[in-house]
């Protein structure tokens, strides 16, 4: 599939495939400003001179960065540049070696429930049915919440199936529903679409754009796919040698991005740098 074609598929109105039905109500897409049934909520992420080292090997060096509340930031970089470490630190899975990392007003010291993480692999529990995977944290009325999250990712009819019976893309959608079910203020994504085929990945991009409009969370996407970063994010960071080498805002509206020669040029530019 060529570059231009995939964009037509992504933003064209003749969308087909598994997600078609789920999108009918909201397609063609228009900016959703009014609040959904539940309040859209987001939170800012701030790094001040953050350094991270494993033993004596520095991975991130003196990194300062502010992700505004509700912003969608994509981090690109070659493997081993520290982008996954950055994400795991923000998630509270790795402590910072030096500097200050805060989410909202509080310094990150451990796992936080308003921050959700989408892993590279779906990481579903194979011994729980889809709905029990989505509602893994249980809590009050978890079945209703899980069902509604599954509806949001277009998998309401698979609630009672075993994860083993789903395709790779469907599993990642279940994982997305599991992240959404608690209405997170920030969603951290560690190359969640890397293992999917091109068509499924495009569908997942649309799904992500749609749920973000509905939920309004701050999003941080780690990816090695520059095109994916440009297609989805408000801002692209290039991570190189443990520090941000470029910080590029992308102001082109989402639906105009496929035909934008400037972005096409930018992609080549970033690829050359990474």
């Amino acid at each position, binding site marked *: 599939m060529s570059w231009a074609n995939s964009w037509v598929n992504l933003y064209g109105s003749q969308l087909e495939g598994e997600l078609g039905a789920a999108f009918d109500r909201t397609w063609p897409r228009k900016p959703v400003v009014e609040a959904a049934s539940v309040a859209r909520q987001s939170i800012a992420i701030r790094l001040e001179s953050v350094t991270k080292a494993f033993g004596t090997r520095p991975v991130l060096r003196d990194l300062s960065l502010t992700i505004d509340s509700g912003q969608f930031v994509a981090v690109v970089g070659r493997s081993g540049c520290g982008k996954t470490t950055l994400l795991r630190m923000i*998630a509270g*899975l790795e402590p910072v070696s030096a500097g200050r990392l805060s989410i909202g007003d509080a310094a990150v010291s451990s*796992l936080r*429930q308003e921050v*959700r*993480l989408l*892993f590279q*692999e*779906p*990481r579903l*529990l*194979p*011994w*729980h*049915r889809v709905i029990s995977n989505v509602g*893994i*944290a*249980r809590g009050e009325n978890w079945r209703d919440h899980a069902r509604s999250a599954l509806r949001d990712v277009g998998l309401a009819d698979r609630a009672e199936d*075993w*994860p*083993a*019976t*789903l*395709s*790779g893309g469907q*599993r990642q959608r279940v994982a997305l529903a*599991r992240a959404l079910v608690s209405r997170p203020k920030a969603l951290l994504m560690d190359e969640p679409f890397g*293992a999917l085929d091109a068509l499924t990945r495009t569908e997942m991009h649309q799904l992500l754009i749609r749920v973000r409009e509905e939920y309004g969370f701050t999003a941080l996407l780690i990816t090695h796919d520059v095109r994916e970063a440009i297609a989805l994010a408000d801002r692209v960071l290039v991570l190189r040698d443990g520090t941000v080498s470029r910080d590029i805002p992308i102001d082109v509206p989402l639906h105009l991005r496929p035909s934008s020669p400037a972005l096409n040029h930018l992609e080549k530019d970033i690829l050359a740098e990474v």
Partner: protein
Amino acid sequence: MGKRAADTLIASALPIALVVAWEIGARVGWISGRILPAPSAVAVAFWTSLQNGELVHHTLISTERALYGLLIGGGLGFVLGVINGALPVAEKLTDSSLQMLRNVPHLAIIPLVILWFGIDESAKIFLVSIGVLFPIYLNTFHGIRMVDPGLVEMGRVYGLGPVALYLRVILPGALPSILVGLRYALGIMWLTLIVAETISAQAGIGYMTMNAREFLQTDVVLLGIIIYALLGKIADMLTRWLERRALAWHPSFQSAAKTVAVPA
């Protein structure tokens, strides 16, 4: 006739032919009744001992010993496996000792067990317990260690406390391995019991066969052997059924209908 029925027929042809040949051989006199009584003689012995209640009596006593041993030894093995799988300190403390004990053939300690417990029930239950402890311990421990760390991390990220993490992620993940340990343990359970009952007992299948040997009742000896085989088979079928139920999520236990697994 369906393909399955045909398959069953083919599979059972050889055993049936053997039994028929054996019966004929015994009737004609090629095989001495003292060495190998005819299948019909064994059937008669079965019927007689069933009617006078001896068979049920001995089978129940043997089964009771087996289950007590399984409960005690298996329970201990399971608890040790869970603790050592969860706490590295506990593993360091006990695992090498357990591995050392595991290498002692448990039947070799029979003389010692008789010295300790005499020849009453506790000796047999102790032997069975020791026999089943290690397969259950090893497979529980191994199963817990082999749980995908990614799933454990996911559980932590999604807010599961230690208890929920254990019950919903770690134990279910270890369950296939634990059940393999259970099946293995059941085999050892019957084997140990046979040996223990043969050496010294006042009741049980082993006692029944040894008693029959004294009176040269080869048919009853044969019957005892068949009962042991049946008990072993029943135990195995029960665990298979348990596996199918408990591992319904596992792709290899799902029926073909509606569940074509798609590789991720």
